[in-house]
């Protein structure tokens, strides 16, 4: 969830009340935002102004700046009416022509003009901060949408949006004096902490997007940087907004939020000068921004049913007003309310969003607390968890301690360190941040050995076990499935093999599986057989565990037991002898 830093005094002035901390916390809680931090104490004795850092819902793009937070809270408190946004002048005076060349790189663009605006230092800072917040959140670090703001008086409309080879784009980027071509600009910002992370969006494209005025002066090279030429300052009175995008829905949301939040600083508040967008090749020709609210109808019966309320449609409409939604009972259907959704609320997608807003305005605390009527359901455990618990309890009762190492490990831990070849059955991660997490384990042994390593100072012997999931690739829908395994290890001055063998016997006894001295007679049971194929065991000290589920059935190999090879033990930085047993728990399902 985004956190927005706002000037505390300014916010309380906008709300028309000096709130105590408790009062303001309470207000935020009910509305669904949260004060993360109050810097009042921190800035005491400095000339910094106290700030509130407010966490807002991730889909409320209209609350990413102080202007929007104050507006939403003021409407919630009934202090103000929602603004009506309108065009001034009514018809576009200029245009932005989108060229077909932008199709392969960044095909959509919007524009708008804020005419006769007056910034103060703090509203100017807020304007810049809002763009930052939008860029990181909704715009996914400028990949989906990027915005640029320009001093319109430095440019000669109409504008074009096109894509050109980098060598043909020449301008001095923001806060630089030297004119460079786009190749040089990309090089210039390569190691820039802020801008460097956006270069990849266009870097490998043969053409870069660019916004030009009628004299081919560069206004911006989205999504990287604006030109210094059209830079806005505190004194700028006419702002040209350019928005370019790969996602046209989000581009519209962005331009709407910018004009909704900052048109209030225009001489005639809440007016926006529209721009004619000409984009014939992809049928996107239109007037921008589209300030027309949408209408979504919601069923009163649905809202009342979800919230267990008996509100009249009029009462619902009154509540919705607190949430910036203008609603009226439908004239044609006595179960519907027609809700007008302003451009500030693109988060409203379905009548469930309207239902939630009725709930918030009514107050979650005021809802009647009830219990679901149908309570007569029967609880039961997942069968494999029940089997797992039998393993766990039997092992603990036998004097072994349960450990819970991680499921992810390095490739070496799962294979090379155990002298296992990579059998291509393990799930491999594409984007781990560290080598600690390269594969999903296909054996519980590495985690157990790492746990013993971290507990080297524990009294010997160390007797530990885990019942946990490993994962193998397969042909299922997801391409891989879990398998529940049980593994135990004994680490001490001697190998303790017979103790591990005895624990296996105890487990088998718990699952009504006798040890078979004469496996060939076909009885139900288990036995172990020397097996030198697993190189993790000391030669001659490894065995397979064989299991026959029913009399007369063919036996299956369910795991292995043995004394680990000294080279394996040392790979895990251990100097003890270690014996292990690991079996597939699912045979007991």
């Amino acid at each position: 969830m985004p956190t927005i830093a706002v000037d505390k005094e300014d916010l309380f002035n906008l709300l028309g009340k000096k709130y105590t901390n408790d009062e303001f916390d309470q207000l935020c809680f009910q509305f669904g935002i949260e004060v993360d931090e109050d810097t009042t104490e921190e800035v005491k004795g400095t000339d910094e102004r106290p700030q509130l850092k407010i966490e807002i819902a991730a889909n409320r793009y209209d609350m990413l700046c102080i202007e929007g937070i104050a507006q939403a809270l003021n409407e919630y408190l009934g202090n103000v009416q929602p603004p009506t946004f309108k065009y001034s002048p009514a018809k576009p005076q200029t245009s932005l022509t989108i060229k077909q060349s932008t199709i392969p790189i960044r095909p959509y663009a919007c524009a708008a003009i804020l005419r006769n605006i007056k910034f103060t230092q703090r509203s100017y800072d807020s304007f810049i901060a809002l763009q930052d917040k939008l860029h990181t959140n909704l715009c996914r670090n400028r990949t989906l949408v990027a915005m640029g703001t320009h001093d319109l008086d430095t440019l000669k409309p109409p504008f074009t949006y096109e894509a050109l080879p980098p060598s043909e784009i020449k301008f001095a980027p923001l806060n630089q004096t030297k004119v460079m071509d786009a190749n040089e600009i990309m090089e210039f910002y390569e190691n820039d902490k802020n801008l460097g992370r956006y270069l990849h969006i266009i870097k490998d494209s043969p053409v870069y997007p660019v916004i030009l005025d009628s004299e081919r002066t560069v206004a911006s090279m989205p999504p990287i940087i604006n030109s210094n030429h059209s830079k806005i300052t505190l004194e700028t009175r006419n702002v040209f907004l350019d928005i370019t995008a790969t996602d046209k829905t989000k581009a519209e949301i962005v331009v709407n939020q910018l004009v909704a939040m900052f048109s209030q600083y225009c001489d005639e508040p809440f007016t926006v000068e529209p721009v004619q967008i000409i984009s014939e090749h992809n049928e996107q020709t239109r007037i921008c921004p589209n300030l027309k609210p949408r209408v979504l109808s919601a069923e009163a019966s649905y809202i009342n049913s979800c919230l267990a309320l008996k509100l009249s449609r009029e009462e619902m409409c009154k509540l919705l007003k607190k949430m910036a939604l203008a609603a009226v009972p439908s004239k044609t259907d006595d179960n519907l309310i027609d809700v007008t959704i302003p451009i500030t609320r693109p988060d409203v997608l379905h009548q469930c969003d309207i239902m939630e807003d009725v709930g918030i305005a009514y107050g979650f605390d005021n809802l009647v607390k009830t219990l679901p009527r149908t309570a007569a359901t029967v609880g039961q455990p997942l069968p494999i968890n029940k089997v797992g618990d039998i393993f766990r309890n039997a092992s603990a009762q036998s004097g072994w301690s349960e450990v819970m190492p991680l499921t992810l490990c390095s490739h070496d831990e799962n294979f090379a360190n155990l002298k296992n070849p990579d059998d291509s059955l393990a799930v491999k991660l594409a984007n781990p941040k560290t080598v600690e997490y390269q594969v999903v384990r296909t054996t519980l042994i590495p985690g157990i050995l790492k746990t013993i390593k971290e507990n080297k100072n524990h009294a010997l012997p160390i007797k530990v076990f885990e019942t946990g999931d490993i994962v193998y690739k397969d042909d299922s829908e997801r391409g891989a499935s879990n398998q529940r395994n049980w593994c135990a290890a004994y680490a001490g001055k001697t190998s303790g093999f017979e103790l591990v063998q005895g624990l296996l016997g105890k487990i088998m006894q718990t699952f009504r599986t006798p040890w078979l001295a004469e496996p060939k007679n076909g009885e139900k049971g288990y036995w172990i057989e020397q097996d030198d194929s697993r190189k993790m065991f000391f030669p001659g000290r490894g065995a397979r565990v064989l299991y026959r589920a029913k009399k007369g059935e063919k036996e299956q190999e369910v795991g292995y037991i043995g004394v680990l090879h000294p080279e394996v033990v040392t790979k895990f930085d251990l100097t003890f002898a270690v014996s292990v047993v690991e079996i597939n728990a699912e045979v007991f399902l």
Partner: protein
Amino acid sequence: MIASGSWAKASFKPYNFNSEGVLPPSGALHPLNKVREEFRQIFFSMGFTEMPTNQYVESGFWNFDTLFVPQQHPARDLQDTFFLKDPAVAKPPKDKEYWENTKAVHEGGAFGSIGYRYPWRGEESLRTVLRTHTTAVSAYMLKKLAADPKPTRLFSIDKVFRNEAVDATHLAEFHQVEGVIADYDVTLGDLIGFMEQFFEKMGVHGCRFKPTYNPYTEPSMEIFAWHQGLGKWVEIGNSGMFRPEMLEPMGLPKNMRVLGWGLSLERPTMIKYGVSNIRELLGHKVNLDFIESNPAARLDEDIF
């Protein structure tokens, strides 16, 4: 001595009762699993069936798309989610209509929603991930429920994976506790009432409910409880009613509504045992002495 009666004349050294005695050699269950068992018993006592969460690998489809998480959502970023190199691609679900419904509800104009209005890509949906929440399994179970929609209570406590930088409170894997109630005409008041009952079973009284945002629930509520030790309200869980955009594409009837909530297993456990670093509770760095000397995990006993 007893047989000969010589004890009567013998003199004995006095015992030192001011001592602990010899503790028996013993095994132990892991503290985190003991808390997990407490939660399981709470769920069983309330009629919940355990979900088959033994499936760490998911497709983007089940982990995100079915939950109405758009394909450009930050949660689907490489920074947050483990994507897989092998197997890199999953198969689409068997139910082709569900696949098409999901696409339609994202792209817009389906089931009463305007959708997110972006071109939904099947390839993105079939990228494999390590599940980021057990809600992927809840979605799978709810889809199954659509074949015979009847009131149902489901829960799970299992591992989830996040591609996060590891620190004192974050590990790349941790456990999620999740509950789901599907019922006809169930209400938000039911969710609040049920949450109070659920948390009272673990000794948490007087919860507060704050509106919040989750992509797949609406309304959504964070659950807060007063923490005496910290002297403040702390978030103990997240909850909500699943969005119609998630349920109706599955074929669930419109008035079959679903309540869901979740919390991490580690967080309440850390609070209960006073553990400040998650690596001291989960993973190979946990101290065996801590495991072996850990008392019973009674959730109803002063967790907060």
